[in-house]
């Protein structure tokens, strides 16, 4: 099957998944106790007022109508072209476009996720390779120990410890926010501070935002690296026992060539797939990390909004998260196909 058709099928497959997610959340949110309408009145409002507010919020229609309307809004191409983001409805609390809110918050999460992923992969793969190469030795046990422990640490605990060490005592890195408060954030192009500041050739802001990024992404990355270490190690062990590795050794190739060019290169494919799967976990962790580092991202947005019963907001966030995860897994699959000569699409 050709690459294009492959991708297309993959995308088509994601649609029902997303739809399911959406419907589930839609229902869950509607069952939540706490009426968003009531939240608009500091003091008890008259029934008429409640009714008008209910109408304003579009909650006066029956559930299924709301549902259909919501789905309709999602696929409203004209709207997307106009605003640059899909119509996710209006916030139940602030009446703002949820789409706008989410896409203003998303870059922060994306940036965090991206850097943490890099950190996690580097630590995970390097340590994993080393420990697999020195199988069943002290080093191996140490590294595995590290991996296991990191897996068991509550992510926000690690974050707090980092804040304490690097923020409070050493004063090296900021303990929160996306950039040093004394500095105006770079003008928004992509919303990723590091990228924007570079695009504007402002290295100072670039380093400032990098400094702010370091602690959160390190926290998230280290936690995740535990899993990566384990994955890499297992796969490496399996690959290292394959004939072609021994054969390569028998040809007197360099140690590094054998390890990286032969073993890792082949072990990497399954690792890649698992990384894709870990992405959901990473985003979950991002929620806690963002709360710990007052990082204005999608995770904190959700936590904020749940208290307001902001149906539309949470639905929107869920949809975006879902899209993101599926997109990543799609990319991973394509990468896999690309990297493995046996699958020539």
């Amino acid at each position, binding site marked *: 099957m050709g690459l294009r058709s492959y991708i297309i099928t993959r995308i088509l497959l994601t649609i029902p*998944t997303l739809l399911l997610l959406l419907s589930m959340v839609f229902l869950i949110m509607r069952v939540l106790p706490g009426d968003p309408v009531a939240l608009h009145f500091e003091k008890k409002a008259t029934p008429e007022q409640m009714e008008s507010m209910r109408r304003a919020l579009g909650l006066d229609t029956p559930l299924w109508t709301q549902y259909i309307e919501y789905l309709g809004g999602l696929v409203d191409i004209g709207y997307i072209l106009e605003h640059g983001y899909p119509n996710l409805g209006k916030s139940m609390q602030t009446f703002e476009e949820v789409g706008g809110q989410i896409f203003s918050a998303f870059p922060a999460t994306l940036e965090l996720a991206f850097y943490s992923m890099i950190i996690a992969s580097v630590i995970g793969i390097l340590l994993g390779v080393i420990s697999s190469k020195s199988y069943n030795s002290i080093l191996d046990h140490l590294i595995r120990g590290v991996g296991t422990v990191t897996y068991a640490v509550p992510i926000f*605990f690690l974050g707090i410890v980092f804040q304490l060490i690097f923020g409070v005592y050493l004063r090296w890195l900021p303990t929160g926010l996306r950039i040093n408060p004394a500095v105006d954030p770079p003008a928004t192009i992509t919303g990723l501070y590091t990228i924007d500041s570079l695009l504007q050739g402002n290295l100072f802001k670039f380093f400032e935002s990098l400094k702010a990024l370091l602690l959160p992404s390190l926290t998230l990355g280290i936690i995740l690296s535990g899993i990566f270490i384990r994955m890499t190690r297992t796969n490496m062990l399996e690959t290292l026992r394959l004939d072609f590795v021994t054969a390569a050794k028998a040809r007197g190739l360099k140690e590094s060539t054998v390890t990286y060019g032969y073993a890792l290169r082949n072990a990497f494919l399954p690792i890649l797939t698992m990384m894709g799967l870990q992405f959901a976990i990473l985003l979950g962790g991002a929620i806690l990390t963002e709360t710990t580092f007052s990082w204005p991202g999608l995770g904190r947005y959700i936590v904020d909004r749940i208290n307001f019963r902001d149906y539309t907001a949470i639905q929107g966030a869920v949809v975006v998260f879902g899209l993101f995860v599926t997109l990543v897994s799609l990319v991973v699959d394509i990468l896999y196909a690309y990297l493995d000569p046996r699958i020539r699409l």
Partner: protein
Amino acid sequence: MVILGTIIVSALVIMTAIAPWIAPHDPAKTRVGPIREPPSPQFPMGTTHLGQDMLSRILYGGSIMLQVSALSVLVCFLIGVPLGLFSSYVGGVFDRACSLVIDAVYAFPGLVIAIAISAMLGRGVVNMALSIAVVYIPSYFRVVRSQVLSIKELTYVEAARGIGAKWYTILFRYVFPNVIPSIVVVTTINFADAVLTAAGLTFIGLGVEIHIPDWGRDLTSGWAYLSSGAWWIITFPGVMIILLALGFTLIGEGLSELLNPKLQR
């Protein structure tokens, strides 16, 4: 590893169990001592910002974590396993549907769902457990399913079918026993995850009521007093949670290593 893990977990369980007899104070009682008192002979782990005895809270505090994780694991097990067995054995449209739903949940950041659900259900051990369970059912389902699909085709199962054994006989007599090992592994890992997720939920403010001593809550509330140098409020619970999660993880990893012949050299 398994042994070490078991030691840790059982040690903590015992500690929590005998807390009422050994705890020097009522863990919830405020102002048993001065507030935010650093560790001292009289308060070996210091006191909280309300002057509660940290030591007593540590001794008691595990019960919530343990209850939540145990309960959620139980729920996962009772739903995930049978569902996985049945749907994969039956196959066809039902199987497809199940897998689709499960994958939808699986592909999604579990914490978000957990948060939403536990916000819906409100506080309390059971509610926390349920919201966590929902997140981890998929992993059971998937493991069981993949296993069954492979076992189903094995000759002896074919044979059993051949001699006209009832489907449930086959499922529970022939298939289920072979699935158990991998389930055990998932379960232990799930325990660890449940503990951490519970801590996470508490951190976001969806934990149990304040008068119930809980490591997660102390860890969270301790955060605010860290910058005023009250390290003991956050450190001890943090360490305990790590120990508990670590214990389960060790068991899980150890088992999976034992059960994974690929890694036997």
